[in-house]
């Protein structure tokens, strides 16, 4: 139980610090710390496979790409002083307004989900510690969600390719 609170505190604390940073590189690192704590929680839930996958996919692959992009852009200051001077988030410039609205929506959802009652979803496979069970369930019970996710990722990939190509045609030198 001590470990649960420790990992939980690290996850929540570093997640909060992510949005409190002015420097995006520090945010990326804190997010990695948060993912690490999450994977610790998976280990406590007796799901070592999920824990390691969490590290490989999020901390090892996605965050490296984040870091790569942030380093290439190298724009540590993300908001203007005039913008920060305004007292309310909703009065600030476009992206921040949209972000604030999203955050409010998410907060409402979270409160709703937490007050719905204490019933927990039962995992259909029973145990998540066996890789074989996870694979079987993923490709039978949840195959639709799995395929939809893969289509979603394909769409994102095609979109990224199109965006990258258009930029080059506009006259910029190829990377």
């Amino acid at each position, binding site marked *: 139980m001590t470990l649960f609170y420790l990992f939980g505190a690290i996850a929540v604390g570093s997640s909060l610090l992510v949005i409190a940073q002015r*420097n995006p*590189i*520090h945010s990326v*690192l804190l997010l*990695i710390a948060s993912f690490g704590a999450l994977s610790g929680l998976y280990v406590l839930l007796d799901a*070592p*496979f999920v824990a*390691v*996958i969490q*590290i*490989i996919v999020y*901390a*090892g*692959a996605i965050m*490296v*790409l984040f*870091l*790569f992009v942030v*380093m*290439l852009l190298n724009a540590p200051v993300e908001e203007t002083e005039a913008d920060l001077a305004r007292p309310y988030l909703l009065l600030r410039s476009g992206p921040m307004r949209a972000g604030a609205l999203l955050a409010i929506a998410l907060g409402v959802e979270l409160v709703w989900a937490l007050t719905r009652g204490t019933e927990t979803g039962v995992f259909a496979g029973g145990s998540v*510690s066996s*890789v074989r069970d996870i694979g079987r369930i993923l490709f039978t019970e949840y195959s639709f969600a799995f395929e939809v996710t893969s289509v979603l990722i394909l769409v994102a990939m095609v979109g990224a390719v199109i965006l990258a190509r258009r930029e080059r045609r506009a006259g910029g030198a190829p990377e």
Partner: protein
Amino acid sequence: MTPVLIAQLSLTLFVFVMLLSSAAGMVYFERKVAALLQQRMGPYLVGPKGLLQPLADIIKLMFKEELRPRAADTLLFTLAPVMAATAAFAAFAVVPFGASTTLFGLLDEPLRLQVADVPVAVLVIFAVASMSVYGIVLAGWSSNSKYSLLGGLRSSAQMISYELSYGLALASVLVIANSLSLTEVVNRQAGTWFGFIPRWLIFLQPVGFLIYMTAGIAETNRAPFDFPEAEQELVAGYHTEYSSMRFAMFFMAEYINMVTVSAVATDLFLGGWHGPFLPESFGWIWFLLKVAAILFFYVWMRWTLPRYRYDQLMRFGWKVLLPIAVVNLIVTAAGVLYFDVR
């Protein structure tokens, strides 16, 4: 404190110390082999046959002045070498290096020669390998110098590109071994085929072994893939601004990563501690010999092959190595499924 717990703790300490000294030993080994390949003497002044040269180097590094660029990001500049070294040490925790032993009857229960027997050990190694890029990237970025930044960017691009082939090579071994535990992978390689061919996975996975070694050399940033520190173009790459012990930590991390890649290759492809002529309790001698052979190969590569060009490296990784790795995985899976190749 039970005897098993004491044994476990001392094993952890032992592995830590051995890894530290293996880094020092590798420095000497590399310089001697390089000298051999170039018909020079190599280090020979400090100690008998120059054996104390690494120690002298470490003492020299400790007394050097610690420099830090004024524009550097202080926190990350300090943290980066620590992250690199931590990742290097962490991977070896799940590598088994010998059969279970009771230390000649000292213990009641047999002790596994492995710091942590994780059921998903192979994936842990892959995860730690993918984390090792952070130390290098952050060192490059936080130094606030163009050479460091270019070195860091190159290394992250290189590591991301070769990680895929590395992972696929691991996956094709897993398909054959039908287990994610390194101990089980090693144990299924015991014995021989037809009485004289050892049942090592390299004979079932020759392509997988080549892909693993190529990607492993690229992952550890060694020649011919040592772009992050190509000295003719980038001074020293990501560690240009580092000096004294912080530099030494990067240096150490690189050598320990080499040792880990070799140890994992031994466990996955070369039968780990299984070998003829020796009883199982002395299997660790086989393990050390095999690791040393792969490390020699590493050093041999470095002093034989010239460095690739950066675009060649990227093209090779994505257009040659990755397709071969995918085909290898599919062929392996088909073999296991339809012809029961085990």
